[in-house]
Structures are given as C-alpha cells and as structure tokens.
C-alpha cells in the first residue's frame, strides 16, 4: 500500500466518521419548542400562499392535509436550482450555483469512477480488460462529467472568492477560514482540471488509482499532477466535516426539524411524550425568577414537584 493510498483511505474514514458523528449529534438533540416558519411545502395547496392547518376550525378533529410530494418537490428545486438564493440574492447565485453544480458533477464523477472500478463483473472480460463496446461511451460520459464539474466548480469558487474580497459587506464578515475554504475549493477543482488537461485526458490514471483503492491492490505510477489532485482531495475530505461546508446537513435539519416542523403535540402521541421528558430536565439559570435546581416542569408549575410530569 502506498502513502497516497493510506492518505486517501484515512481521509475517507475521517470524512465519513466526522459527517456521521455530526449528523447523529444533530439528530439526538432534545426536542425543542416549535419555531416553524411559513410557507411550508407540506401543506398541500395552502403552501402556495403560506397557509397552514391552523386556518381550519377544529383542525385536531379533521384529517390533516399534508403532501410529501410538495415537500420533495421543494427540496428538489432547492437542491437542483438553489431557488431560495436565486430569489433572494441573485448576484451571489450567479457564482454559488456553478459551484454547487460543479460539486454535484464532481460527486457524480466519483460515482462513475466507483462503478467502473467495480465493473469487471459486468463489462470487463476475464483478463480485466474493459470491453470496447461499453468503454467508449462510458469514457465520454465520465470525462464530460468530470470536466464540467471541475470547470463549473472552479468558476463558482473563484467568483465567490472575488465577491468576498471585493464587496465590503461580505469582506467585513469574512473570516480567514472563509477565504481558506474557498481557496481549498479552487485548488480542488482547478487541480482536477489541470490534471485532466495536462496529464490525464481520459482520466485513466485516476480511474486506475480508484480501482486500486477498491481492489486493495498497488496502484500504477500516476503523473505528478494526478497525485497532487489526489492529495488535495484528501485534504479537503479531512477538513470538510469540521467546517460549515457541511451545510448540506445543517440545511436538512434546519428545514425538516425547525422551519417545516409542525407536528402537533396531540394527547398520547410521540411528540407529547418527548415534550414531557424534556420538561423533566433540570435547569440552572441563575436569575432570581428562574428557580435553579428544579426541573423545568416544577419551576413552570410552581409546584415544587420534580417529576417532569404535568400534575393531573
């Protein structure tokens, strides 16, 4: 096993572990008080104008008119087109959109590499040599996806870096880490683009390296630029889980657990049970009206009870 392979394996492990740990941490946070924000796409036709089930008298006794299709459609529009940014901050969208599309294509490129590396079962002959019929179109697809991804990603990241540098209201709030993130993204995409153009026109070397990772075999020698590209990709994966660039995850929780979370507490349902449990948590706020040392329930009811349950 080469040093480069170890680096890439380690980066993948750190990325996956870091991302999963973060997701689990977010998922395991206690239930919070409701803090929704309309419009909410789950609200069937009402979502068109921002309405909710609160518009109906006796809504608890009526069947709830929810649609997951609306929610999924909204997510698709948001993921594919960054619609909220398009509507509310068009200038930024012109750069953020290519960056994100570049990322999607780059992930797609990795998926194609992965599939091709597993492909011997399906499209490789017994010697492990790709069959000509399938190799050519797959090559075209893979190269196209890769080049488009690296190209758009570079354009977007460079544009965002310039916006941060040139616009005063961005610059005033930008941290060194914000610039570092963008420089790293530029390095990631641009190195991919350079490696392709100068040393790996059909992505053969990177494909062979991927195959070696999957098959646990020694990789063939790759050109310097390809190795540089792999090192940068590994650094990016090491770093990613510890930055706000994991906002794909944050956005999921922000939308599904906060903005769009309207599941009511109905006697006996799961939400009510979780709320009861949360009310049993102790508080230690020290202002005089806070009754530190009691549970939330006892302090709120003024009963001195410490059960976390509402007195019946």
């Amino acid at each position, binding site marked *: 096993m080469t040093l480069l392979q170890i680096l890439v394996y380690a980066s993948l492990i750190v990325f996956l572990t870091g991302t999963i740990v973060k997701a689990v941490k977010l998922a395991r*946070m*206690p239930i*919070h*008080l*409701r*803090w*929704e*924000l*309309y*419009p*909410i796409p789950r609200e069937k036709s*009402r979502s068109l104008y*921002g309405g*909710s*089930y*609160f*518009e109906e*008298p006796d*809504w608890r006794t009526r069947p709830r008119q929810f649609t997951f299709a609306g929610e999924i459609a909204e997510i698709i529009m*948001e993921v594919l087109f960054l619609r*909220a940014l398009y509507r*509310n*901050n068009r200038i*930024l969208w012109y750069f*953020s959109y290519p960056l994100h599309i570049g990322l999607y294509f780059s992930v797609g490129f990795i998926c194609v590499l992965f599939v091709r590396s597993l492909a011997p079962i399906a499209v490789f002959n017994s010697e492990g040599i790709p069959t000509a019929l399938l190799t050519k179109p797959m090559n075209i697809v893979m190269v196209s996806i890769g080049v488009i991804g690296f190209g758009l990603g570079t354009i977007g990241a460079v544009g965002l870096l310039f916006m941060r540098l040139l616009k005063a209201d961005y610059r005033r*709030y930008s*941290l*060194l*880490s*914000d610039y570092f993130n963008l420089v790293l993204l530029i390095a990631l995409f641009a190195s991919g683009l350079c490696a392709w153009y100068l040393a790996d026109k059909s992505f053969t070397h990177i494909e062979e390296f991927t195959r070696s990772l999957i098959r646990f075999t020694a990789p063939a020698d790759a050109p310097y630029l390809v190795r540089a590209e792999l090192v940068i990709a590994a650094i990016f994966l090491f770093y990613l889980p510890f930055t*706000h660039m994991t906002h794909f995850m*944050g*956005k999921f*929780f*922000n939308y599904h*657990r*906060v*903005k769009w979370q309207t599941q*009511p*507490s*109905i*006697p006996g349902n799961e939400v*009510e049970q979780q709320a*009861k449990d*949360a*009310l049993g*948590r102790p508080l*230690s*706020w*020290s202002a*005089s*009206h*806070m*009754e530190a040392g009691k549970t*939330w329930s006892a*302090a*709120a*009811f003024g009963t001195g009870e410490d059960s976390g349950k*509402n007195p*019946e």
Partner: protein
Amino acid sequence: MNSNSRKITPSDISRPGSPLAELDSGAFLPLPPPYDKPDYEPRIRSLTKEQTANYECDLDGVSVVMLERPKTRDEKLALIGKFLSGLKKLFDRNDNWTFLQPLFLTMEYCARCQTCSNACPIFNESGGLEIYRPVYRAEILRRLYKKYVKSGGRILAKLSGSDIALTWELIARMIELSYRCTICRRCAQACPMGIDNGLVTRELRKLFSQEMGIAVKQIHELGSVRHLGKGSSTGMTPLAFKDNLEFMESETREQTGWDFKWPVDKVGADILLLHNAGEFLAWPENPEAFAIILEAAGVSYTLSSDLLGYDGVNYGVWYDDLQLARVAIKHAQIARKLGVKKIVIGECGHAHKALAVIADRILTGNLNIPRESCLTLLNGIIKEGRLKLDPARNADFHVTLHDPCNIVRMMGIVRPQREILKAVCPNFREMTPRGVENFCCGGGSGFAIAPNLNFPDWRNIVAGRAKLRQILDVFHDIIGPENNKYVCAPCSNCKGQMRDLFAAYGLFEKCNILYGGLAELIANAMVDLKEPFLAWEWH
C-alpha cells in the same frame, strides 16, 4: 449616514467610549407623499447628559433597557462572569433544550452571505446602518460561542480570524442591540440555509433575562411578573376586570338594543375566549364587537375572570422561556377548570404564537387542550351565514389589511382574515408585500409596550418606517384627508404601535387614516345594529 457608522465591524462592539453608531435621519429611506417634504418627519430626540451618564446607551444613542452603568471594575467583572455562564447555558441540553437545536444550527451553518440583510426592514430603512444588519449581532454571538463554548475555541478563534474581546462594553451594547430587532423573522424566511437571526435576538434576550436578570422593565417586571402576580400585565385585577366588563356590557346593550349579558366563568361552555387585556383599556370596541358577533351567532363561549384568565398576553415569548411556560400553563389550567372544548385566542398576534404554537410542547397531559385563532372562528361564523351582514355599511371608507407576523409568517393563518374582509368591506385593497412576506408593524417583540427614554422615537421612525411606507403606498391614489381610510390590524400589539406611529406622523390629521381591529368591521356590517358600530372619532 455617518461614514464611520458604515465601517463598523463585529469586533468594534468591544471598544470603549461613545456610541458605536450614529443615527442620521438623512440616511433613512425617504417616505412617499405627503412625508417627502422637509420637516414633515418627527425626529429622534437625543438623550440628555444626565440620561447618558446614567444609562448604557453606547450602541446608537438610544436606550430602551435603561440599564444603569456599572460603577466599579468589580461590578463589570461580575457581570462579564454572569454573561459567560449564561452563554454556556444557551448551549446546554438541559438549560436550553427549548431552543438548542435551532440555535446550534444557526451558530454552525451561517455562510455570511448577507441574503438576510435584504429582507430586514430595520436595516434597510435605517439606510443600511451596520449595527442593524441581521448578521451583525448573530456574528458577535457566533464568535463568542466559538471562542468560549466550543472546546479549543480560544486557539481556533485566533487561527480563523474570529477572535473577539469580551468586554463590558460588548455586553452592554449587545443588551441594547437585542432590542433593535422585532423578531419578525423575515431574515430567516429569506435565508437559503434557514439560519434564523431573529432567533439569535430572542436567545440573547433570554441569556440576559434568565441568567443576568436584565430585561426591559415593561416586558419583565411590569410585564410577565405582574401578569403572573396580579392577573394582567396592564395591572388589571380580577375585580377591575369585572368593572370594565360591566361598562363594556352596558355599551353593547346600548349599541344593539339587546338585553344580554356577557358570559363570564361559564362552566361547560364550548370556548374560552382569551383577549389581550390591553383591549379592555385601550380599544374596548374590539371585545365589544366580539361580544355582539358571538351573541348574534349563538356561539357557546365564556370569558374568564380568573387571575390571568382575562389577559391572553404572554410576554415570555419575546425574552424568557420559563415566564412563557408559566403563563401558558395558567391559561390552560383556567380552560381546564372551566371544562371548555377549546381556547380561542382574540386579536393578539403574540398570544396566538405563544399559546397555539410555542406552548404546544409545554402543555402536555390534561393541559393539552385545543387552541385556535379567533380569525378562523369569525370566518366560520360568516361562511355559515350566522350573521346578517350588509357590506354596504362599510362602503364609505377604504380598507387595507396589516398582517401581524405572529399570526401569518409564524402560524400560517393567511386566508381567513382576507375572506372576512372580502365579505364585509367592498373597498378592500392589499398592501405589498403581504401575507407571509409582510413587514412588521415596527412594534413587534415588545417594542410597542416599551415607552422608555427616546426609544419610542426610534421605534416609530426606524422600526415602523417600512409599515408606514406600505400604508402610504397602498392608499397613494386617495391619500388626501377627503377619503376615509382604515388599516385593519387584527393584533393588539400592532394596534399599539400604530397608535404611536400614526400620532407621531399625524396620519389621521394629514391623511385621514384610522387603524382598528377586524371584529369591528364585521360588527359595523351587521344589519342588526341600527347605528354604525364604527365611530371615525375613535382615533
């Protein structure tokens, strides 16, 4: 705007000395006619030397919290220590289970893309004063969180360039800054990530209240504390409520010619109607209109004279989770005692959000009673034809609708009030933007009840400016005093703001614009009433 005010950065908040930013009325966005002329606008008064010497006002020369300046270094150090302990509690699973997840997400995932700035009426109307930028206060809290709460934060803060000096000046300014945002949450609505800078405002207020015991006096001491102690934040006791009720009851008897009594403490009624007690004192015509409508429609309901049962406000929603929970629990306990099927919340936006939405995960067990809006009840009554209405009775004036943020953007009640207005007001016209994209009245999150020092000037001229512009724009073709115009604001807090805003700008005198509730317009259209319910002199 003062050019230095434009260059303010988050780290400047720590610096000692004079106000961080100066308010320059010349930089505020211009208003439409007739307020486009010089000297037609009121001015923000400066604090006196004595006030400046006594109270912390080094943010923008305005003070609402009226926080006395600490006199010694030890006092300052003790307050800094309390702030730090409160900061840590904001991110604790037990101390802040109530909002930990939304706050954590907001702290971790902001890209500082400034999309929220375009959505904030206060920032925009001030001419882009940096300290009012939604991300400004959020970024300061974020830097403090990363430095003092996250492990290894002090080193990482230096490495990432996010270091910030925690000084008393920072804390004093943040206390005031947490009352320069109405928590309208337009910023959160615009944010592609769902980052909520309105929540940051509320969490900061919580830290100050729950740990340091610092809050605007009218919101805490004369607000939720008085509410829980005396029964109403207005100071109205149950006995005083009954006196007021008798007066209002006799008025409605006169108006209708009916011999009827308002139902009070009626056990077994279907509905407990919970008004904001401010209505009884400032706008009694609103509960009177409700009493007439519900009587005519034959609705089984009751009011309560129990402690807290006649005041549906819940100021905790603006600044303190425990006070919020205490008030909500009392309301639910009263409903349970009366054995009603549901609570219906009167025309009060924050009471809607507090009881129907936020308290949903506080009122468990036998307190988990259905809670609904009066707007759906009123709309249902009209749709079912339970009232004899003649819209022509509302034809001699033009009506527009102000959407209270708490009812619309935070609850999704958009259509019922519009259906009512379309049914009873032939000359109804909509503002832009409206519905869930509305602008706050400028009095949200407790602003309307805080008359301290020069804060009302700031509230009217800066916070209420977007709403004032909307009102002038929607009536632009009939702006002269020869046309009667009515801004329907189905929220006590919004009406409180409009009362002050209209008075400050002389809106009634110059443009003949009146504000009022929704129920009044329904009552005015009722053919059962011989005389018009609305009196234009109410202003």
